[in-house]
């Protein structure tokens, strides 16, 4: 097991190094110059030279890469070229917002998706199923930005139910925090709700035609108990797996939602950094994202090996 663990750790480190190199080179391959993007209107050759010098942009790629990696290894992700702030602080501030938004979106999506999926399966071939299917199709097809704009127009501007923008940290004002996040979470959760609904529906249909359900019905259990305790519980295993797998997609989807609702999250930070060619920020967010992916995959792999000894054996071979 130890050998397997070491092997996987080694693989993860190599992957992380490769990701770092690709991102480092990829960012620099983008057309556009960070010094120009920073200088904007007020640019003159002397200022551009000074900016390049200050941020080491005129050093060779190798020197720049070494600077980045050696500082990152010490936990120093550098300073934003645009604002001069510490990138580590920027990320530390942005990450919790996106995580909270994603968790809320999953909650919203699970409640809506599982509910609609169960209804669609139980009321198969009836208007309720058609309605649920139509909603799922809408959820998958309607882009988040449009839905977000509509939500702001109708729920914030017309009805005044939710704030149209802004963010309050949870520990400062828990109620205000939820009030600000509920609408973005709803918008972000719709696509996932649709996926969950379809998955729940098909799993439920499979489960409802299984022998153990017939047995449960034959035992005289109430339909509610049959659906809730037997069919749904078994169907949810697949659904839970899907939810876990969608987490990454959800965080990417948060980019749009965060921009619409002016939330200080990770996605907004990344996109704005790309547009401004803020190399240290882009590199750092990608590094953190890659590290998170690698860590999650590592944990999943280790869990697999615990559950399924064949994986471990193959790893040892």
């Amino acid at each position, binding site marked *: 097991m130890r050998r397997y663990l070491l092997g996987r750790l080694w*693989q993860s480190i190599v*992957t992380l190094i*490769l*990701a770092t190199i*690709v*991102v480092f080179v*990829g960012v620099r391959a983008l*057309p556009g110059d960070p010094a*120009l*993007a*920073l200088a*904007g*209107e*007020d*640019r*003159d*050759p*002397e*200022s551009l030279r*000074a900016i390049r*010098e*200050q941020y080491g942009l005129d050093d060779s790629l190798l020197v720049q890469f070494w600077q980045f990696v050696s500082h990152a290894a010490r936990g120093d992700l550098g300073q934003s070229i645009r*604002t*001069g*702030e510490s990138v580590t602080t920027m990320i530390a*501030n*942005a990450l919790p917002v996106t995580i909270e938004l994603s968790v809320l979106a999953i909650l919203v999506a699970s409640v809506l998706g599982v509910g609609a999926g169960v209804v669609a399966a139980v009321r198969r071939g009836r208007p309720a199923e058609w309605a649920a299917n139509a909603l799922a199709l809408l959820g998958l097809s309607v882009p988040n930005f449009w839905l977000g*704009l509509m939500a*702001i127009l109708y729920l*914030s501007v017309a009805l*005044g139910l939710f704030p*149209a*923008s*802004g963010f309050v940290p949870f520990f400062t004002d828990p109620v205000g925090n939820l009030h600000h996040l509920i609408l973005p979470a709803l918008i972000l959760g719709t*696509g*996932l709700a649709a996926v969950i609904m379809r998955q729940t529906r098909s799993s439920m249909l499979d489960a409802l035609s299984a022998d153990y359900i017939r047995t449960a019905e034959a035992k005289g259990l109430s339909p509610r108990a049959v659906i809730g305790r037997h069919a749904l519980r078994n169907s949810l295993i697949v659904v839970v797996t899907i939810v876990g*797998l*969608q987490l990454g*997609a959800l*965080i*990417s*989807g948060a*980019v749009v939602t965060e*921009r*619409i609702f*002016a*939330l*200080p999250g990770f*996605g907004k*930070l990344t*996109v704005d950094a*790309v*547009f401004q060619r803020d190399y240290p920020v882009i590199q750092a967010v*990608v590094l953190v*994202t*890659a590290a998170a992916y*690698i860590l*999650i*995959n*590592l944990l999943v792999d280790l869990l697999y090996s615990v559950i399924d000894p064949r994986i471990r054996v193959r790893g040892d071979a």
Partner: protein
Amino acid sequence: MTTRRLPFLLNRSSSSFAGAAAGVIALALIGTACSPVEPAGSEGGGSNSQQAGGQDVFGDPADPAQVKPGGTLTVALSADPDKLDPTLSRSLYSRYVFHTMCEKLYDLGPDAKVVPQLATALPTISADGLSLTIPLKQGVRFADGGTLDSTAVKVSIERGLTLAGSGRKSELGPISAVETPDPNTVVIKLSKPFAPLTAALADRAGMVLSPAAVSRLGANFSTAPVCVGPFKFASRVAQNSIKVVKDPLYYDAAKVHLDAIEYRIITDSSIRSANLKSGDAQVADSLSTQDAPSLQQDGTMTVLQSQSLGYQGLTVNIANANGIGNPLKPLDTPIAKDPRIRQALALSVDREALVKSIFNGLNTVACSPVSPKSEFTSDAAQVCPPHDPAKAKQLLADAGASTPYKVTMITSNNPDSLRLAQALQAMVKEGGFDLVIKPVEYASLLDQQDRGDFELLQLGWSGRVDPDANIYNFVGTSGSQNVAGYSNPEVDELLTDARQSTDKADRVKLYGDVVAKLQQDLPLIYLYRQRNLTGVSKKVLGIQVYPDGVLRAAFAGFAK
């Protein structure tokens, strides 16, 4: 979108990298362009309203009897300011924030004239134009408790001249020394006369920084900026918001009504408007053509309008084949070589129709870099050749160019710029041109511009008070932004004379002469001037916008 991610997530380590990379690509592709400065339409837009017919609405100062003390004002800003350091800052939007927390030696009035702010009078300029004496206000304190004196002014100006990456150096011109004969007087010595200096001191170059904060923070001043102002810096959340709070040490604190101002960055103009309507923000800058009319008709809103001192135009690449900063090298294209083709292109554009159809008559026609609002304007500086496609065709024929003459234009890929480009494309066809539009993302556009990798380029300039700052750098041979690669010794001489003259009438005439030359050579075809549109809730009084485009919120207050 979501289901496609399943396979790599189900896999093991090799997929973790793919996941990260795909995430980055997705992140890079999603979202809308964020343009810090001046693509077409970014500063304002049109309106169907008759009220919008070119009238400036600057807003009025708050009547103390009508406002209540306290409250936090939320301003929806269209772009994230860059470094909150007056020496290093380069974005227009940082000036919005500085207005509330970093006062300047001079300010601008609604008539675009310079007025004293931390100084008590306009500078006394010596007869040879080489010395400016500036008297300072007394009893003024920085937000950290320090006292404003001539030494602090000297520190700030010298920082602007020497700090690596300073954006103020060229604005401050040929300063040879800053002297402090007494605590309340600053004398600036110049190696040669430089008329635009007073106007520069009414902008970031004239902001006075706390010497204590400068010595403590050095180049990191932007992390906790300290100046003299009605408000002081409180916090900043990257790409999201900036908060300033009332400074009790401010010399005129009784005039400050609000407790705090939060600048919230909302890049999408419709969402800014929605925030204004929902009451989540009370002020929103850079309204779009689509949103302004509905806000103007909304009884609870006011739309402030001020004509920009800058311009939007088309730059022709004449001799910028090597990239800016390198020796000029003429392009081997007919439009670069023959001014008649450029004249034909200029004559093909119906500016009146353009302004009416694309901007609903809200923006104004521009044929020169000198704003009609400038105190240095003249009839000569506002001459505008009429739209004449027949003459354009004739000029093309005279130049021996085959028609339709194909020319490729790069432009920013935001909706307003594209709309403008399409209108131009349709318009110049009549004059014998086949305009090919190449939309480019903003950062790439700047890059291509400076590398000289374009034939024709659409971009604008937000404008400064002194005309020199709107002309010299763009059409002077050694201009830092002479991306056309234009070089005309006569124009250079006229511009240098105008720079060094201390006589206003003389400068007015010289700029008129420059415009006449530029209209012959046309390195830049000026099209129109934008109008800065700012939406303000009527719950707030005292928000103002002047021709410098800076939003003035410091002395605003919530209505009783």
